[in-house]
């Protein structure tokens, strides 16, 4: 805002008083949010402390905090990566479809439809995953095991129930699709017409135009969108808790009966029946999750912010 007239002290007392109170409230609300965020870290640390200092044999599992959290962190990252691998090309394709292929008139409506995927509560994705995706995945898993069994990810005995890391990855991919598509859509729409027309005027087909003008322009946006999606996938709880059939330890096999759990799902499954040091252990693992997602999200936001400055300068 350019005007400064409102800052000038006025002669009447009341409006100035009102202004001060209101400005104070607004600033206070902002500060409160920062305090809450700091509080999240602070309180988690406080409640995790007993687990950090406890003797290894007292921690659930009996081998210390690190041994408890590390397989869960592995499972968390593995499922999130599978989701990312599936969702990234899909979201780029969908965003391109909406921005550059679909007729203008219905493009907006198609965007809403994809957004609706984000509105479905995660518990419903969990139930749907167990009853629809998991059974449907069994033949696929059998096929993978048969033909790609030499890869460490596809073990010799695929799960008969289908409640596997792979299925969780697929469901997570669907859940993070909307946020990634939204970001991609946004950046693809911002491609300067100037550059699109430049490539068309050189005799590019639609796809060649996209490759020459749209993709290079949107690349950093796609990366940050993928990181936002990764953050979501890392923290997703109920869908994983419901679908995954978990076994202790680290399992590379993503179609077998034994799967590494994830931090978030483990908390949801264990917390209601836990007390004492077990609660502290779970909070500690939550703290780890918090920092992983914090880092991923900060990286994503940082890329977006840098991109905004970069494109603003041009």
């Amino acid at each position: 805002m350019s005007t400064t007239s409102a800052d000038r002290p006025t002669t009447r007392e009341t409006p100035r008083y009102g202004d001060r109170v209101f400005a104070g409230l607004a600033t206070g609300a902002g500060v409160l949010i920062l305090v809450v965020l700091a509080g999240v870290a602070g309180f988690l640390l406080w409640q995790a402390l007993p687990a950090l200092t406890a003797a290894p044999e007292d921690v659930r599992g009996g081998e210390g905090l690190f041994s408890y959290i590390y397989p869960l962190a592995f499972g968390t990252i593995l499922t999130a990566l599978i989701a990312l691998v599936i969702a990234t090309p899909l979201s780029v394709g969908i965003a391109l479809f909406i921005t550059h292929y679909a007729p203008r008139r219905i493009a907006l409506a198609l965007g809403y439809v994809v957004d609706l995927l984000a509105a479905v509560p995660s518990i419903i994705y969990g139930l749907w995953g167990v009853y629809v995706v998991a059974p449907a995945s069994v033949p696929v898993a059998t096929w993978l095991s048969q033909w790609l069994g030499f890869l460490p990810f596809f073990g010799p005995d695929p799960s008969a129930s289908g409640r596997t890391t792979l299925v969780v990855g697929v469901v997570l991919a669907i859940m993070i699709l909307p946020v990634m598509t939204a970001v991609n859509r946004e950046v693809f729409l911002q491609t300067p017409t100037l550059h699109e027309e430049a490539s068309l005027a050189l005799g590019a087909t639609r796809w060649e135009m996209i490759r020459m003008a749209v993709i290079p322009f949107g690349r950093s946006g796609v990366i940050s969108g993928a990181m936002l999606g990764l953050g979501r996938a890392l923290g997703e709880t109920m869908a994983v808790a419901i679908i995954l059939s978990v076994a202790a330890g680290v399992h590379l096999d993503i179609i077998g009966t034994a799967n590494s759990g994830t931090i978030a799902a483990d908390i949801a499954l264990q917390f209601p029946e836990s007390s004492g040091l077990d609660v502290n252990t779970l909070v500690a693992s939550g703290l780890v999750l918090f920092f992983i997602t914090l880092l991923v999200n900060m990286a994503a936001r940082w890329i977006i912010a840098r991109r905004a400055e970069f494109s603003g300068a041009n």
Partner: protein
Amino acid sequence: MPDIDLDVPDQRETQSPRPSRPDRSPVADTPLLRPNLPRYAAPAMLVVAFAIVLALGLTVWSTNPVALLLETAVLFGAAIFTASALVEGRRNAVDRLVTVVVTTFFLLALLPLVSVLVEVVSDGYKRFDLQFFTYSMRGVVGEGGGAYAAIMGTLIITAVTTVVSVPIGILTAVYLVEYSRESRLGKVLTFFVDVMTGIPSIVAGLFAVALFVLFLGPGARAGVIGAVALSVLMIPVVVRSTEEMLRLVPNELREASYALGVSRWRTIVKVVLRTSVAGIVTGVTLAVARIIGETAPLLVTVGTTTSSNLNPFSGRMATLPVFSYYEYAQPGIPREPYLDRAWAAALTLIIIVMALNLIARLVSRLFAPKTGR
């Protein structure tokens, strides 16, 4: 028909310097008039491809919609690519192939949405009856019972969350748009609000638990604890959407108001917020839709109970998502009545969420500032 430039596409093979026209040596000619696949070719191929896939699916393979879609796409893509490469040249063939891929991706994304809705409705309607909405689960073993307490619990906790989050969220947005002016605090706040939208819901739940250990000691469960957890999730959403709306308010309006001698806070309340109220309501509604289905934070903060506790300040409460989860995860024997209740709760939840989304769109459509066209 005109007779020029009916160059065959595969002249590309011999594109190296052509002595006859030295001035355009290394560049291959794209024929001006190129042979085209007839208009009906693509739809016809699509129909044939789908028919083949469907026939195969019904007899030997599978009629899973995803399989049908993918197989059709692969078959059709291969056919159109080959045909186009032969007739129209490689570049057009690639272009057509990409179109097929991109469209397939979009359809692929629609399938889960349709499938989820079909599944929830077809399993949820069985217990979608009057009893489900008027009874709680007190003393119920096996059939019967309902989600009355859970629905009330969800409404109460959501209401508390909204009452906490909306003022904080809107005030923060006001600070960011009207007061911060590129200040250090404003920048830091914008960044962390964005980061906050990425906090996993279970972590928000743990935070609320840890916070209330301070007041109530370990092991406490209450509706407000859940509301605090949900607020952590809701506030950043409200801030972001409100901020966007406030930035849409043109500066001339503010200046006109200042010019009339109206004080700053009155200008913000009476002009800026009043102008953008529809957008803010839309944003808040979408934020409510987002948190009303949250399960994980309630699982660790509110727990569940079979009786109907409607007091958010003390003791466990039933909520719709958690109700659905426990009916599924800890059923009795036989399982069916429990699973039916789980799906009925899921159906209720999805109806609420979709209704909220619809309302949000309607509000923004009906009350949006009129633009041209």
